[in-house]
């Protein structure tokens, strides 16, 4: 496990050193290859993890599938590379993957210093704290002197440092590289607190030995807009990824689902006609087939469907839409017009 990770990291680094400067057309390379190589989490239930049959499942996984559906008309033309938090950006920079959909927070420094372009957010998250119920902690402000389990190399690590510094509280971080090892240490009582994005905490709690023993504190201490990312240098590919995510959101707003998309083709609403390519134009503008948005909705679904299928209230994560509801329902999911 450790060895393969190190090996992959080394290879990624080698690629960064060795690759000859390419023409800068990531899209061409992807088309030539015939599939998209997407970097995903691999260990977070609901976002990116293979199921018992080895089929990749999750919100981030489905986002990558939507991009494949847009480019190839076939959502299955995507291969997944599980990455740790520390490998993910190097893997994208070096060209080992074409697309990063691995609950990565968009920040100014990542966008500028890492040479990445983040696109439309596919999950608005925030960092929270999970504690044992029997400790009787009611608020994150009570955590002075606590031992906190945290993943390395994440915005989480910085946010926690900022939070404790800001509130003049002492803390003791325990930083372990793999999510699995980290949660094991937390469940065994090595730490009083586990901090991560609230969605991940829900995912980790879902696989706890006794999920009911743990509670997530009410404070959300950060903004974590989780977005897919591509590297600098190919604006067309960036646009396609951006609008693939937006298409899922727009489809939900227009009431188009994977079930009714074929009937919707007959709709008289020009917005829907434009969206599904009945009135041509959008596809050509992006350099794609006019059916690209239809393919996304038909094969992957709209944002609401993808959300409910992977992390919604009926799954073991049981997350409510919250910030991730459509703007029409008081959330932040808002798509620019498709015209």
């Amino acid at each position, binding site marked *: 496990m*450790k060895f393969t990770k190190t090996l992959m990291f080394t290879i990624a680094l080698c690629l960064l*050193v060795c690759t000859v400067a390419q023409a800068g057309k990531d899209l061409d390379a992807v088309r030539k290859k015939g599939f998209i190589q997407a970097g995903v989490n691999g260990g977070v239930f609901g976002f990116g993890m293979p199921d018992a049959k080895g089929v990749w499942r999750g919100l981030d996984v489905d986002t990558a599938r939507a991009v494949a559906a847009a480019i190839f008309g076939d959502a299955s033309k995507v291969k997944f590379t599980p990455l740790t938090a520390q490998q993910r*950006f190097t893997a994208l920079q070096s060209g080992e993957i074409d697309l990063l959909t691995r609950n990565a927070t968009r920040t100014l420094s990542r966008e500028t210093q890492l*040479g990445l372009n983040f696109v439309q957010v596919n999950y608005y998250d925030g960092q929270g704290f999970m504690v044992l119920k029997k*400790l009787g902690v009611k608020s994150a402000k009570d955590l002075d*002197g606590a*031992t906190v389990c945290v993943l390395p*190399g994440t915005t989480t690590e910085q946010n926690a440092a*900022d939070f404790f510094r800001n509130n003049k509280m002492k803390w003791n971080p325990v930083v372990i590289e793999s999510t699995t090892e980290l949660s094991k240490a937390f469940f065994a009582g090595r730490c009083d607190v586990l901090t991560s994005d609230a969605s991940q905490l829900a995912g980790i709690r879902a696989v706890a030995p006794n999920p009911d023993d743990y509670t997530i504190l009410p404070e959300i201490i950060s903004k974590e807009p989780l977005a897919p990312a591509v590297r600098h240098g190919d604006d067309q590919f960036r646009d396609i990824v951006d609008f693939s995510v937006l298409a899922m959101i727009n489809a939900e707003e227009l009431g188009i689902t994977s079930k009714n998309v074929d009937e919707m083709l007959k709709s008289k609403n020009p917005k829907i006609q434009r969206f599904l390519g009945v009135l041509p134009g959008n596809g050509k503008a992006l350099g794609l087939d006019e059916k690209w948005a239809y393919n996304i909705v038909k094969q992957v679904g709209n944002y609401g469907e993808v959300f409910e299928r992977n992390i919604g209230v009926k799954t073991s994560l049981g997350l409510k839409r919250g910030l991730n509801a459509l703007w029409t329902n008081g959330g932040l999911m808002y798509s620019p017009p498709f015209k």
Partner: protein
Amino acid sequence: MDKPTASLSSLPSPAPPFWRDAGKRALVFQVLALATVGGLGYYLFSNTQANLARQSIATGFDFLKKEASFEISESLIPYSAADTYARALLVGVLNTLKVSFIGIVLTTILGTIIGIARLSSNWLVSRLARSFIELMQNIPVLLQLFFWYAIFYEAFPAPRQALNPIKGLFLCNRGLIFAVPEGHPAYSAMAWVLVAVLICGWLLNRWGHRRQELTGKSFPAFRVTLFAALLLPFLTWFFYGAPTAMNMPVLRGFNFRGGLSVSPEFSALLLGLVLYTSAFVAEIVRAGIQSIGRGQIEAAMALGLRPGQVLQLVILPQSLRVIIPPLTSQMLNLTKNSSLAVAIGYTDFVAVTNTTINQTGQAIEGVAMIMVVYLAISLSTSLFMNWYNKRMALVER
């Protein structure tokens, strides 16, 4: 040859073409090899630069002066999230040195004991030593680290139920927390006295040797020094008024405050590395001792030397020659293996650098620093051990 004599130069000496001249040919090959290596290096460097610039990834070491803004749980020097990356990395280097140094000392002691036990004539002792060696050598060290770490956090209770075997000592899944004496000038005075005693002991030992060479009378320098080293600091402490105030750990809130604590991460890493490496050291020590001919030992005993003297005067001086070179390589192994700390959450240099790489995105600089630091540690260990080896080597006459 620079200034040939007139008679020779007047002859039309057939100078061999340069490809036949071994000296010149060698020079040409050297230059070619150097040019190839240099060219390859330049190509890699410029290509990397170009690629990084194309992808607009920041380069250079400017990030070292920026605020690190992440916390490190264990540090030998004061550190907070407001300090720079440079300081965070220094904390990492010191943590690596700490675990390596303590690890090397303990490994050498434990390895020697087990190596000698392996040769014991007692059936049980030698079998136990042998099983220990086989077990430790044949399980991957990473697995051992996971095992010890799991033992630490699974087996020990939470802080509120901490084991308290003696007053001022607590054992829980946050580590080992123990009371330390409250700061007092007496303790630094004691340390100075101890240093002075050790220096005197060293001089006394030299004088004793010289006297023995001249007169044949031996002097028990070691015992005298040991006695003074125990007695004099104690007298100093008494002289300063025998302070007894202790800094006691107290459970407040989530954790113990006060006292000193050893974290489970550090303990697990140290334990794993020491047990694993000492198995190899034990075999090296055994080989070293067995390389001494039995006849020599018998001869020494026949001369009337006591067993301790046989070990000190006959066996060790010779077997150390055999032991030191492979021992050095085990020390280097231990240092390098300490980078597995990442897996169990001890913040060594690699762990800190990994976080730095992730936050700044400057992987090449980070990895280069890792290489330079480990190279520096390894080379200094080698230098020291080579110097020691030279001192220990038999002087050929």
